[in-house]
């Protein structure tokens, strides 16, 4: 085992600095042992005892001794070279220089201590920890938007009650999007400021209404998310009523839109009663719920598109009377086996709304998240007759990213539907905004090409119907995304309602006997 040493005469180094050098040398490849010491009698004895130098070494207490034992000559020489370098360059520019490092906060309380101006916490950590983080925020007097899902309903109720007591807003859990004072939280679209305030228990529902309004030139004052369970009888609409009251007091808000998937009947009544007391016009879109009569104060909309249109007129805007529809779609050339539509959605509310619209035109459709339990697919991965599925549902996202972020699940499903000889129309949504995929239409267009090839090989053609939920202010840009779809031969409608109607009409036309 080769040993090497070096001595620097009358060269004083602090013992700690030397220990540091020795530790570094011992970390080098091939180095068994190293010492770096002032050559006092005691230190020399230790070095001799450790077999690093022999007794003949000539050194005085004011001399510096560095010795290594290594596996081979090269390693020993290399180690001494490093030692020389450290001795020569001591004190010139430490790794951290002189710069002071600011630590990123490690907790909500730490962030607040560093900046007392903070007033809202956006929580998107894993659901099992989310309730605790929200609790900390509320305890510290901060509002919460909780994007995280998989939070127990008991926790939700508890958090919302605490928030309500403290006059704080608790948006979520499972609140996908909100826009407060123009700031996008979660998956939000690019929207301009304006007179319409929204409170929504559905993220995509909110995106649809606000995006349509934006495209019609009407901006948003506030868009408050409540989380999907807020209108559940146990939660009791705490956040929606709180949001409604806040918007009622907000001078920037002239009209209010309330959006939810089917609420519990008693909560719906409670919310509508609060809406009637709001002193501002309110549009209510509770999908699939029984409608109360309209009055001057509160109007009920059947679809998200209609809710946007009513809100638009309430603030003096003009919604397009009928969407500028694509030219008539050629359904000739379909194979006789092709009779059904297949909806492959990324947005749950869109999937639900589509089922309601199609039920009126086509009768019940199948789904893994059906509006009536009799039409639940036995196998969610296999469509039958007319089927619309929500690929963003938990069942499809276990261990996979959400289809708004990652297109793979939807790609596979589109190819599967294309291979089914009964498929005539494939319907889909494209959701834009901060946080969504950078070019979702481009991804879908690629799937469509592949799908057409699969069907074509079997002598079939396919009809694609879609819509894009988003605005020209979104990072993906609505106009560009629509153009991408049109280039791929997609029948592009302006809203989910319009796309659903169009898809259903095509199926009706296909079923109708040829004239």
């Amino acid at each position, binding site marked *: 085992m080769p040993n090497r040493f070096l001595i620097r005469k009358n060269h004083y180094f602090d013992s700690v*600095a030397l220990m540091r050098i020795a530790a570094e040398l011992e970390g080098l490849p091939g180095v068994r042992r190293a010492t770096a010491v002032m050559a006092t009698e005691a230190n020399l004895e*230790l*070095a001799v005892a450790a077999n690093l130098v022999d007794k003949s070494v000539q050194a005085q207490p004011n001399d510096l001794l560095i010795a290594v034992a290594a596996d081979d000559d090269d390693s020993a020489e290399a180690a001494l070279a490093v030692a020389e370098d450290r001795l020569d360059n001591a004190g010139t520019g430490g790794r951290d220089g002189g710069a002071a490092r600011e630590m990123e*906060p*490690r907790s909500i309380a730490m962030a607040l201590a560093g*900046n007392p101006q903070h*007033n*809202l916490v*956006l929580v998107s950590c894993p659901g099992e920890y989310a309730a605790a983080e929200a*609790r900390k925020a509320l305890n510290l007097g901060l509002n919460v938007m909780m994007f995280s899902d998989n939070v127990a309903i008991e926790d939700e109720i508890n958090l919302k009650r605490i928030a309500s007591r403290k006059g704080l807003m608790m948006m979520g859990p499972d609140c996908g999007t909100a826009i407060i004072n123009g700031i996008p939280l979660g998956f939000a679209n690019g929207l301009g400021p304006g007179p319409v305030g929204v409170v929504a228990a559905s993220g995509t529902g909110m995106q649809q209404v606000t995006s349509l309004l934006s495209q019609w030139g009407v901006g948003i004052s506030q868009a408050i998310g409540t989380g999907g369970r807020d209108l559940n009888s146990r939660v009791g609409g705490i956040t929606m009523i709180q949001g409604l009251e806040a918007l009622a007091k907000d001078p920037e808000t002239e009209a209010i839109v309330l959006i939810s998937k089917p609420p519990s009947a008693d909560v719906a009544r409670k919310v509508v009663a609060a809406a009637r007391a709001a002193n501002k016009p309110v549009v209510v879109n509770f999908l699939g719920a029984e409608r109360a009569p309209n009055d001057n104060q509160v109007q009920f909309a059947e679809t998200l598109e209609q809710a946007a249109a009513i809100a638009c007129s309430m603030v003096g805007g003009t919604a397009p009377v009928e969407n500028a529809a694509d030219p008539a779609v050629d359904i000739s050339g379909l194979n006789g086996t092709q009779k059904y539509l297949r909806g492959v959605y990324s947005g749950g509310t869109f999937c639900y709304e589509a089922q309601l619209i199609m039920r009126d035109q086509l009768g019940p459709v199948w789904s893994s998240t059906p509006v009536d339990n009799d039409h639940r697919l036995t196998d969610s991965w296999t469509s039958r007759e007319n089927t619309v599925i929500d690929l963003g549902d938990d069942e499809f996202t276990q261990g996979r990213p959400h289809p708004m972020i990652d297109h793979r699940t939807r790609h596979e499903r589109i190819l599967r539907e294309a291979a089914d000889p009964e498929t005539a129309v494939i319907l889909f949504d494209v959701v834009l905004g901060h946080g969504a995929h950078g070019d979702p239409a481009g991804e879908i267009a690629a799937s469509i090409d592949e799908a057409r090839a699969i069907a074509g090989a079997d002598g079939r053609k396919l009809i694609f119907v879609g819509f894009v939920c988003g605005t020209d202010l979104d990072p993906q840009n609505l106009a560009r995304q629509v153009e991408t779809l049109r280039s791929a031969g997609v029948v592009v409608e302006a809203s989910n309602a319009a796309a659903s109607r169009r898809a259903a009409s095509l199926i009706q036309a296909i079923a109708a006997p040829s004239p």
Partner: protein
Amino acid sequence: MNDFQHQTLSIINVGLRSFAENISSVGGAVEHVDWRPPANGDREIGVKLAELINHPAVEAANQVAFDRYAAANPVLVGVGVAARDLPDMEGKTILHAGPPVAWEEMCGPMKGAIIGAAIYEGWADNPEAAEKLAADGAIRFDSCHHHNAVGPMAGIVSPSMPVWIVNNEEHGNRAFCTLNEGLGKVLRFGANSADIIERLKWMETSLAPTLAAALKASGPIEMKPLIAQALHMGDEVHNRNTAGSSLLIKKLVIGALESDASQRDIRDMVAFVAGNDHFFLNISMPCCKAMLDAAHGVKGSSMVTAMARNGVHFGVRVSGLPDRWFTVPAPVVDGLYFPGYSIADAAADLGDSAITETAGLGGFAMAASPAITQFVGGSPSDALIQSRDMRNITIGRNSQFTLPALDFAATAAGIDVRKVVDTGILPVVNTGIAHKEAGIGQIGAGITSAPLDVFIQTIEPLHASVAAAS
């Protein structure tokens, strides 16, 4: 949030970093949290921790505890004898560092030191006899902390040993510590040979009376100004006590010369103190103990009042849970080792000296002592960062202890167990490393962190105590 127009949104982002980027891309104010599941992902404890955050009862209790710590005025008043001055020292009692530990469990240096103490006390003639005495249960062992005392390394206190007496003039509580024996082969590292016993006897019969006489003549010494001065002279009063020791001897020499002590005793005393740069450690420690004991026992308080190691366990005491120790296995310190030694030779973390960090000194005052940072291969700028980082886990800052390199910022003090568990930032501890075999002595030094798990343990009992009170 009921009046939007009066609030500019300022957001704390916990989770997906891209959400923070979205917000800042439109000019929104946002701060991203470097978040990880608190309490090592233990969900139940995480929920209890959340309920304790900004809890009014805990906040109020911490203010009381911290104010008591800050107002404490430790004064060096004399040199006494353990049997006479420490509470509950009757019979064959030996105190040790850290949380209570049984003889069978003790580490090598602690056993060695106890054997030495038994011989020193005349309870045994030789190590074998002393060991038998200990094993037979003839000696009562207890934690220094239970007797208002602290001890470095093994921290052994036996009845005849002289002790420094620090009196907290503000609250009236006292704290004690033995006299520092120097470096090398010393009792606190487990050495127990005849020369060690002889030195202990000399300390008892010559050094202690001389110091006592000197202190009597000079009058009590207020310790906070002296510690503050030492910080400005490059000490952090844990691993570096060069300045503190010098300042002390300056005060004592005049008193000694004015006392009745013999010329020879004075000479020996001065030579001993001047030759031991760590002499001051055994005074800084009881000062910290006196300050922290004043803060101990405030119901609901989450303030740490002691961190202490016995070579087997790392223990923590919390003000609001006064009758309990929280312990985890003591880590082995991955520091820098003297030539010929490595981590394989090291005893697990040992000694009460982490009382200095608990009081906002030691590792918390690292910025005062850049030389010490090299023990972890750091740079002086690391020292500044370390002192600043500690602010994130403390209740407040001690304005009497300031750090020149941080523009004379006050040291972070009063560790809050909630903040430790919530942030995962661990209290830093500067420490010496003992050889695992008795009597070999110090083999290295380093900077280590108090283990997270010991703080996690405190959350449930603290939560229960607050819930029971409200």
